[in-house]
């Protein structure tokens, strides 16, 4: 009944060649496996093969309680683990209908934006490394390390924090937190210009990215792209604006849009988002209200029978948690709508006719995180 896997073979006498990029390749940022068909340097077809880091988190979550399953989402998109946890917490809260204390909302949003900056920093370094410049990677890590230290002090972990719990956050802020974040903002403002000097303005870098991997807006919508990938094509899809959660409606920030649609536009959108996130942090950090950091919830959580979907804007796009509850202590089914999965599906479409070097640049500009795609 089902079609068997076709094995792509080179046709003798033509100059097409099938090349595996990944799973162990410097440009795939993990274990993505792409089978590309080449004619010389020109890409004819890109076919992603996934599953090298599939852990079946959705199935696992079916046997975990509503408090427990949140930690596993940190392992999906490990670069924006806070935001993933946030989405899960919000989804559970939506079912429980609890009121989140204002202080907790502030803390959550600050953490989200810090995570976004850290994630974009790493992306920036990795992107420059993909196109061949190695020094930016270390500069990006200098800034990312500062955020990680702040996180470590407050949340107790550097990458997989599990800081968001249903009803608020796990601990209160560390006393040093506000001062360190302010110091980071001041530091980062001076360094972000260095980023521009070293990479953005560089003529080689610009030529590598401009008019490469052009994603038209209608394709971005049809392929379900979200986040900076879609916004670089002029699709307004920032969930912080369109389906606001927590205290985002009260904040002053702009949705970063670009009409280029090429890799350079995606690059610029992310770089501008860094500045926007800084702007958000500046608004919040000075007046975090006093109060509880966690709402009172029952020890054993039970969601009423029904279905709950909570979208959230991560560093890579729309992350959705879809919980189907049958009224028991564990979810009946959980679906994680990961932004990377949809963003990856567009790779074949936009990299046809480009060169191998461009494929690497496009992958970098899509900002793929493989555990997020495989789940």
């Amino acid at each position, binding site marked *: 009944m089902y079609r068997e896997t076709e094995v792509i073979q080179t046709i003798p006498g033509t100059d097409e*060649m099938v*090349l595996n990029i990944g799973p162990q390749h410097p440009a795939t940022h993990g274990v993505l496996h792409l089978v590309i068909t080449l004619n010389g*340097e020109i890409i004819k077809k890109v076919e992603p093969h996934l599953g090298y880091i599939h852990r079946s988190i959705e199935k696992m979550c079916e046997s975990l309680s509503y408090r427990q399953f949140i930690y596993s989402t940190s392992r999906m998109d490990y670069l924006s683990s806070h935001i993933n946890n946030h989405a899960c917490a919000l989804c559970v809260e939506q079912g429980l209908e609890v009121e989140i204390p204002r202080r907790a909302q502030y803390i959550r949003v600050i953490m989200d934006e810090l995570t976004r900056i850290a994630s974009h920093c790493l992306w920036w370094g990795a992107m420059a490394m993909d196109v*061949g*410049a*190695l*020094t930016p990677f270390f500069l990006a890590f200098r800034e990312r390390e500062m955020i990680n230290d702040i996180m470590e002090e407050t949340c107790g972990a550097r990458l997989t924090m599990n800081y968001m719990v249903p009803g608020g956050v796990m601990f209160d802020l560390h006393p040093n937190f506000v001062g360190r974040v302010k110091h980071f903002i001041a530091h980062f403002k001076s360094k972000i210009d260095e980023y521009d000097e070293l990479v953005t303005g560089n003529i080689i870098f610009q*030529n*590598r990215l401009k008019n490469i991997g052009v994603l038209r807006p209608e394709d971005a919508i049809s392929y379900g792209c979200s986040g900076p990938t879609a916004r670089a094509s002029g699709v307004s899809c920032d969930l912080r604006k369109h389906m606001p959660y927590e205290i985002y409606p009260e904040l002053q920030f702009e949705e970063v849009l670009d009409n280029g649609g090429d890799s350079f536009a995606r690059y610029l959108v992310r770089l501008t988002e860094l500045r926007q996130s800084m702007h958000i942090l500046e608004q919040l950090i000075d007046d975090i209200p006093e109060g509880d950091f966690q709402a009172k919830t029952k020890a054993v959580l039970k969601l009423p029978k029904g279905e709950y979907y909570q979208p959230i804007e991560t560093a890579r796009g729309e992350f959705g948690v879809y919980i189907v509850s049958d009224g028991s202590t564990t979810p009946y089914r959980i679906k994680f709508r990961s932004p990377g999965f949809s963003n990856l599906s567009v790779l074949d479409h936009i990299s046809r006719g480009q060169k191998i070097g461009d494929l690497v640049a496009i992958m970098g500009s899509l900002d793929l995180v493989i555990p997020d795609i495989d789940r």
Partner: protein
Amino acid sequence: MMFSLENITNSIHEWLYANLNATLALIIEFAIIGVLVIGLFAALGLVLIMMERKVSSWMQLRLGPNRVGPGGMFQTVADTIKLIVKEGMTPDRVDKLLFNLAPFIVMVIAMVVMAPIMFAKGFQIWDINIGVLFVLAVSSISVIGILIAGWASNNKYSLLGAMRSGAQIVSYELSAGLSVLAIVVLSGGLRMSTIIDAQQTGWWLFKGHIPAIIAFVIFIIAVTAETNRAPFDLAEAESELTGGFHTEYSGMKFALFFLAEYVNIFVVCAIGATLFLGGWMPFHIGNWQAFNHVMDYIPSSIWFFGKTFLLIFIIMWFRWTFPRLRIDQLLQLEWKYLLPISMFNLLLATVVAIAGWHF
């Protein structure tokens, strides 16, 4: 002069010919050359790789190697030992003969190219009368080694890397040649010693006006490309082709490629130093007799190596700053920018040379 390599070589030469018959003396001289060059080769490999690692780490705000020896100085020695002890694998379906031949070709080229380089005043293996042409001609053969390596490996990455390298090296050959020609026009000779002597009163970079500066810039870009260095390292292109033409090489065979790459950098920078920065000529300023006299006291070999390492530093600086070009941009840069500009620059140099506008 307190210390001169010229005197040492001359006295060895005379002593050999006085005490032995001519044939034996010649053979012994060749043996000395061979041993010296091998020593230089090994020393260059160790020093340059160390330098690369330190330069890169300092530009990236890291410490760099610091465990083996004082300040990590013997790290490359340890690496060499590691590479010797590692197994030099030959995958199954490779063309065994060519696969094993390729490192030899690359090494032979890297070593032969050393012949006309003047390391110090009067210290040279062979002052060949077409010195510059010789270097250009021989160094371009190394692309054959890379092509063989890529083809023999039976690996798609290797093949792509070799193809890229072929298109790249032959292209940049042209603008390197044309920028060298500009200096040849100014100096009036192809012999290394002639070119250096022409810079007695000042280095071509300073006294050759605009054409020499343009030629210098184009030369540096072209040799960076010819030695497969970033931002022109498309033949290896780590993030695209994992290892390019040497993907399948391991152990000592890989080490030979690696060594040859660094020696090639040294050679082209030595040529650059000879052509544009006066080789072993000390730095002189017009009529400042006292200053010039002090400069003369610095041994010529130090001048030569200082200039060469300055150029090597610039090339390393490129590597740790710039992103990699794409293959079509690389060729576009050569054919649409460097080649027309260097053609025009040659005319400019001719005008300057004939009118005698240089100092």
